[in-house]
């Protein structure tokens, strides 16, 4: 699914989190929103997911206006910064949550749900942890469960807020590859937020550099490296 962001702005009271920004994301791309703290990355991601509504501007999914769609209608697989796993449910129930939440007509039968959860656990290479609770998992395992839970709803796009933020360097590298693989097998349009320029450059097809609520530059990693448009971008990617 391709995503079109047209002149989106967002104000929280007196603070402008996003000045009008526009961005076009082709279907199937893996996009990084890169920028320092407070640059509006999370805000933009939440607007895409329908968790926040823009003050002005439009969002188009596959050419049709999605600005007014509710969170549920967007069907975005969202991975939260601290994963937000349901702490009182097992891993299995966490992953099954979205399927069970479907209206009766489109809800798969229990056996089918179990089959899909098992398949997702295989996909994230953690086949044996279905019965555990989130508190019994490592940080990296939690992140993968959160990813599986988001994928379970057969989302139209994948949105991840600092998916590797709280992990150590080795795990980060493994999971990066994991995300790349999952993106390549599912072909989902994927947007992830990061403030780590190395991570963005290494992983993404398209990097969006943001600063103070504005998009400074959009481009392929090698183009941004070779031709930084502004002084900010040059400084940020060499730091």
């Amino acid at each position, binding site marked *: 699914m391709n995503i079109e962001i047209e002149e989106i702005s967002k104000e929280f009271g007196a603070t402008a989190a996003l000045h009008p920004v526009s961005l076009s994301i082709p279907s199937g791309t893996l996009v990084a929103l890169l920028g320092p703290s407070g640059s509006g990355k999370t805000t933009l991601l939440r607007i895409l997911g329908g968790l926040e509504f823009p003050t002005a501007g439009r969002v188009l999914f596959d050419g049709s206006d999605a600005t007014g769609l509710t969170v549920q209608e967007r069907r*975005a697989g969202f991975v939260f910064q601290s994963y937000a796993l*349901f702490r009182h449910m097992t891993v299995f129930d966490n992953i099954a949550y979205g399927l069970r*939440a479907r209206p009766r007509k489109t809800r798969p039968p229990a056996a089918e749900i179990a089959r899909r959860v098992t398949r997702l656990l295989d996909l994230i290479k953690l086949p044996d942890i279905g019965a555990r609770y989130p508190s019994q998992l490592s940080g990296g395992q939690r992140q993968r469960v959160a990813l599986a839970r988001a994928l379970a709803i057969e989302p139209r796009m994948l949105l991840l807020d600092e998916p590797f933020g709280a992990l150590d360097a080795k795990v980060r590298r493994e999971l990066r590859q994991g995300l790349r693989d999952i993106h390549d097998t599912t072909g989902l349009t994927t947007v992830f937020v990061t403030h780590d320029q190395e991570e963005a450059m290494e992983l993404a097809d398209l990097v969006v550099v943001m600063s103070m609520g504005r998009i400074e530059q959009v481009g392929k990693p090698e183009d941004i490296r070779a031709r930084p448009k502004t002084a900010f971008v040059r400084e940020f990617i060499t730091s």
Partner: protein
Amino acid sequence: MTETTLPLRWRPATTEPALVRWGLTVLCLAVLGVLLFAPLIAVFAEALRDGVALAIASLSEPDARSAIRLTLLVAAVVVPLNAAFGIAAAWAITKFDWRGKPLVLTLIDLPFSVSPVVAGLMFVLLFGANSALGAWLVAHGYPIVFAVPGIMLATLFITFPFVARELIPVMLEQGRAEEEAALTLGATGWRMFFTVTLPNIRWALLYGVLLCNARAMGEFGAVAVVSGKIRGQTTTMPLMIEMFYNEYLSVAAFTMAALLALLAFVTLTLKTALEWRYADQLAANHRH
């Protein structure tokens, strides 16, 4: 501080000298014994002074039974209402940003800081026969003051903070992320509430409800002002105890007091039992 500057006579920081430990423990037990245990024993001893049969007989007297029924009715109405209000208030305060939040937070605490007698008087002023509203209500056959609705209102007011106060810190600490996750996964607001919000706050909610219940059954001051103390009609257990006591019906007074204490004891036991039964889950939830 670096390692080389550690004091020579090193001692675990969490261990106090034995004397202090024992002293504090004994002091604590002594205070508990004098302030809680001894009076409780005294109440039960006084109730059973003339035998179990007499004590039970005093409870089956019509006025006493009516008081017990009324107290149970008040609790049965007030506690669910305040559980719902408490959840709604805690929700509004912790999950949304809006002006006037500090004011509402203060208002929630009002029943804690206002003397119950004053609270009762407020309702008399508002709904009593001397107010326009009260007169109208009486004329139409809905008396509030000196009637059961007044008792319910006063109890509702007094016990309002318990559930909200228990829930607010828990909900603040948990934030909105899990609920947002449920929404992105396609859950409706109601489904989110019942499958994510409620399970996450259930222990705090249970505790708040138990406290609310204990106070709803035990409230004296505010209820005394609005009830009018009509025997067999608007007399709750605490009021009945006072009446019996003033009439030198010592066995009846202390038996009912013992029963009230027993109700409180049952709620606390229930809570402890539940905590013990679900200790694993509790620990798992808290570690996150």
